[in-house]
């Protein structure tokens, strides 16, 4: 992070890169040390630093014994910005508060939404070339993209003298249209591109989803071969539920345990469902 941000590195930083490279048995990590000694970095060198960061993260998870791994989005700006940056139909509106003193650059949808270019292909291709374990690719879901954006397609402000229930229905209808358009025209073609490249595990992250009844959470994950639901506070006004749905592109998902291990349950955490196995990944 320091190197990518252009901050000066000291011997302690280099020693940390060396120690972890050795501990995780990162192939040729000495090349990273050599690169780190040549600041300031060009654009291409920064991209190389990102790839090293991905490699270290993947090796960390592999060395911990996880069967399905990922690099922690080392090569993305952040989960919202990265998706919107590769979409048509959005315009930047500036920095806004997310929660506490945390801010993010928020965009507004102003026109038809479409995929500018597949935005996880390069990352997936690189990770495929270095990962020994199976890969899981997290993608930001349509609901979150919509929830974290302004909708400026209809620029008419609400008439506050109109009944609140009517205005609420109109807001919900507009939100539904927005979410579905993101899902159809941005997320889906991006996932299809990933699947074409051979992605087998795709995790749709929806931290923008508001907490609802437990039953609705169950129903949203019931049709997925593997799922994970966790909670954490991510919004200023209420604790937000992060529901993460992972799915494998395989009809024989019940045999999903890695061929690298003899154990049917091989990840860091796992639990049994009466009729099927649910596996936890990072």
């Amino acid at each position: 992070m320091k190197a990518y941000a252009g901050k000066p590195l000291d011997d302690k930083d280099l020693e940390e890169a060396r120690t972890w490279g050795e501990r995780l048995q990162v192939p040729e990590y000495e090349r990273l040390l050599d690169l780190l000694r040549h600041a300031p970095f060009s654009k291409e060198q920064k991209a190389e630093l990102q790839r090293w960061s991905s490699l270290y993260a993947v090796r960390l998870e592999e060395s911990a014994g996880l069967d399905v791994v990922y690099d922690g989005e080392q090569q993305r700006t952040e989960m919202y910005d990265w998706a919107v940056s590769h979409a048509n139909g959005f315009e930047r509106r500036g920095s806004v508060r997310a929660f506490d003193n945390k801010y993010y650059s928020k965009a507004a949808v102003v026109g038809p939404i479409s995929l500018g270019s597949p935005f996880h292909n390069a990352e997936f291709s690189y990770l495929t070339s270095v990962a020994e374990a199976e890969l899981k690719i997290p993608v930001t879901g349509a609901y979150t993209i919509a929830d974290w954006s302004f909708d400026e397609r209809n620029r008419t402000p609400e008439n506050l003298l109109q009944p609140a229930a009517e205005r609420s229905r109109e807001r919900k209808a507009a939100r539904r249209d927005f979410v579905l358009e993101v899902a159809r025209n941005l997320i889906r073609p991006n996932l299809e591109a990933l699947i074409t490249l051979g992605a087998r595990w795709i995790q749709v992250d929806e931290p923008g989803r508001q907490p609802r009844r437990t039953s609705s959470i169950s129903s949203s994950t019931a049709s997925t071969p593997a799922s994970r639901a966790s909670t954490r506070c991510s919004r200023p006004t209420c604790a937000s539920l992060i529901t993460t749905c992972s799915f494998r592109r395989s009809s024989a998902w019940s045999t999903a345990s890695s061929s690298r291990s003899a154990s049917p349950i091989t990840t860091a955490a796992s639990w049994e469902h009466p009729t099927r196995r649910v596996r936890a990944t990072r």
Partner: protein
Amino acid sequence: MDAIGVDLVQTDVKALGSGWNKGLVAGVINGRSSILESPKDLVDVARHLADTVAPRNLYLSSNCELGYLPTVVAEQKVQRLGEAARKVKELVSV
């Protein structure tokens, strides 16, 4: 307590009743939307509240803090709020 604040983006104006003996802080600027309110619409809402709810004092405000808006949008909304307030004051003084 001198006044009660109400988010009018989420609240039906009819639910406010009438004949208040307290002030009303009316949240008429939507701090969650980047769409700019029209000063004329804000004046219309203020007049409606003054006529029907008839609070002891009427204050025009945003329905939440404006930190969830980009600074430039928040500034424009505050400008429009001020413009609406000036017009309402003119109407009251006539």
